[in-house]
């Protein structure tokens, strides 16, 4: 296969590598967790994976548009502490619904701040979102200095036990997002996104509203981070200002494993969601593999680095040939 054919091939099949990896990881996971396909196990796994899946989907949109957002984890934290402090274990459902609506707005507002500085002030995305990540993390810590708070029991059990049509709730949420993404790709907005991420100045010359598109990707990521924060809160049913800290790198890794290039323009949300599932399964395997607790953080991080390195290693070999 020559260079051009390879390029066309990989451009048309950005998910290929991640699907292959998904199959392998699933097999390994099946080996350590034989009842993996049991309904309850799937439900258990999926509700743990869901927050990262949602976050990765949002991060994918930003990266596809040529940016990056390393503040998404902090947005998750803000959402988590708002829900945990404002609703409370004894809070009534109306209050919970109200606050869920409110945190979605908060997420979008946080995304809008990122988007404003990156798209309209034309600052570098990495350093901008690094700065705002501190801003947001500080805000989360300000709202909830010590871990605590909670949400009504009914919401946690709803998140845990709802299985419409015998399928985990997470499946429906994922399906909904995939449908939405599928629709977006059929619209001008989807084209604009690839164009802006692919070559922003050429897109500009073709009258694509580059800044508005860039701005919108950060708002989308903020919204997805808020959804992710709601899911996390329902999962752990308590508040902690560091909830999202570890999620940022995982979400970027999921996007990379999912076949989206960090330079933008190629890839998509579906791949990122597959990537998030892969990361979740890897964590699963590690916890089943009886690794000494002290080693778990290291193994986890090392696997993330290896996963990030994988596309580079493949390229290295391809160039050698």
């Amino acid at each position, binding site marked *: 296969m020559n*260079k*051009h*054919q390879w*390029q*066309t091939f990989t*451009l*048309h099949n950005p998910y290929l590598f991640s699907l292959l990896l998904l199959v392998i990881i699933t097999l390994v996971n099946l080996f350590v967790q034989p009842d993996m396909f049991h309904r309850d196990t799937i439900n258990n796994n999926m509700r743990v994976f869901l927050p990262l899946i949602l976050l990765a989907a949002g991060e994918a949109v930003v990266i596809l548009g040529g940016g990056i957002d390393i503040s998404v984890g902090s947005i998750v934290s803000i959402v988590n502490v708002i829900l945990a402090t404002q609703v409370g274990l004894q809070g009534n459902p109306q209050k919970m619904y109200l606050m869920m609506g409110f945190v979605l707005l908060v997420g979008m507002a946080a995304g809008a701040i990122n988007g404003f500085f990156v798209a309209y002030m034309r600052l570098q995305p990495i350093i901008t979102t690094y700065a705002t990540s501190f801003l947001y993390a500080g805000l989360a810590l300000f709202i909830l200095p010590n871990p605590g708070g909670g949400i009504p029991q009914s919401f946690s059990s709803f998140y845990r036990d709802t299985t419409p049509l015998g399928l985990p709730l997470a499946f429906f949420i994922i399906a909904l997002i995939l449908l939405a993404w599928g*629709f977006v790709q*059929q*619209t*001008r907005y989807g*084209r*604009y996104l*690839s*164009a802006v991420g*692919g*070559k922003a100045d*050429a*897109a*500009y*010359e*073709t*009258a*694509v*509203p580059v800044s508005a598109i860039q701005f919108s990707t950060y708002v989308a990521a903020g919204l997805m981070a808020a959804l992710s924060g709601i899911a996390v809160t329902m999962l752990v049913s308590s508040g902690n200002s560091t909830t999202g800290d570890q999620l940022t790198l995982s979400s970027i890794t999921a996007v990379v494993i999912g076949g989206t290039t960090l330079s933008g*323009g*190629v890839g998509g949300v579906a791949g990122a969601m597959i990537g998030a599932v892969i990361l979740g399964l890897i964590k699963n395997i590690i916890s089943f593999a009886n690794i000494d607790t002290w080693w778990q953080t290291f193994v986890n991080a090392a696997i993330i680095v290896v996963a990030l390195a994988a596309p580079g290693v493949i390229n290295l070999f391809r160039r050698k040939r």
Partner: protein
Amino acid sequence: MALSLSARNVVKRYGGVTALSNANLDVNAGEVVALIGANGSGKSTLSKIINGVVVLDGGQLLLDGQFMEFSSPQAAKNLGISTVFQELSLIPQMTVAENIWLAREPLKRGGVIDRKMIREKSDALLNLFAGTYKSSLHPDVTVTSLPPDEKQIVEILKAVSFDPRLLILDEATASLDSRQVERLFELVKRWKQEGKAIVFVSHRMEEIFRIADRYSVLKNGVTVGTGAMKDVNTKDIVSLMVGEESAENAVERKKAVAQNLSGSSVELDVNELRTDFLKGLTFQLHKGELLGIGGLKGQGQRDLLLALFGDLKYTGSINFSGELVHFKNTRQAMNKGVALVPGERAKEGLLFIRSILENLLLPSWGEYGFPTRMRKARESANRIGSTLNLKMAGLDEPVTGLSGGNAQKVVIGKWLLRNPRLLLLDDPTKGVDVGTKAEFYRLLARLCADGLSVLFYSSDDEELLGLCDRVLVMHDGNIRQELFGETLTKSNLVAASLGASRESMQ
């Protein structure tokens, strides 16, 4: 609807560099106006101002007699102005159809893009060039995987798809082959009859005389002449482009070089050099020889120079100064005495925000010890600066402030500091003013007389004819023909450049 557009006294500055100081252009419906000028004269800048990509710093644009201020490319497009860009405006990762209809996709109900209609409309557009491209070009292929000529066709179709009233063709023919150019000209004639106004930006004289009705010549950012094509000949245009000096003097004749190579040894012996693009090149370069490389743009000249400089993987053997070499990186090549002046001065030759001193000494810092002996470094830089007659405010000034010619002197200077034995030049006079060009030719002659071997690619045929005794004409990754002595004539050079159509030329 008839259209008239005029640009009056347009001024544009980039940082400290003035790209346009007094540019003028008038174009009306149903005519083709050629915007002519040497490289770097401001042609592209003027066309970017007309289509709203670049903001003008002074002067005005009048559309149908109305004072105009375009706030964006979008605004210009809404007024019916469309451009074929020299640097393509295509998104590499997207397909041909997606690129052509970007931002104007026909929609079905619910905001969904009508893919079927896009494909049909793209097919219809591609039909305009039917028969001049390979079957691999179809609406659903990704743009990255296309060769340069087909990318150019897509770019043209993209501009046409707007059904513009004014179409700007900025060097649109540069990477097209002769059949494609032929087809484009047929289309241009048709569009002209349909009442479109067309601005044709080029420096290919023959094409200009074939297609244009009127001309407007730019020189160093100033419009120096306008009129009807039928009133002038090539010589008139050229003398407008180069100014006072006559066209003949623009290139000093080969007497200046006066090469006597009988008896000199072979400095570079290349055998079956292959890269992804080059298809087995074999040639020799003598000590002190100025060997020209010709051909249309993008025929492998760049690959050849990069491979010789160790920046591109290759197979085949290279014998340099009697020694078999295979450079794996530029540093190895440099340490053996090879130097490269790359084609894109701004992107590949200079460190823009750094000082002249640092640019001049970039390859040589290692030779000034630790801690770096700055005084000695400055002395060297000043010495080479005066040798090259480099006009600068001081060594510590950023290189951004220099004119094209002086900036190129810095690029050449950084290599001369190292006393190379083989100098590889990739179109070094692009965007360089006439005076500096003449200096540069004298410099080359002197260096060759001192025993430096030079491999000289130029996109300017006159330059090759004037300076070289021997020219290798490249076409599609091959050396199509070696021209020397009697056979080194303009018509042979052009014929060999066109490659495939050589038979038809004879």
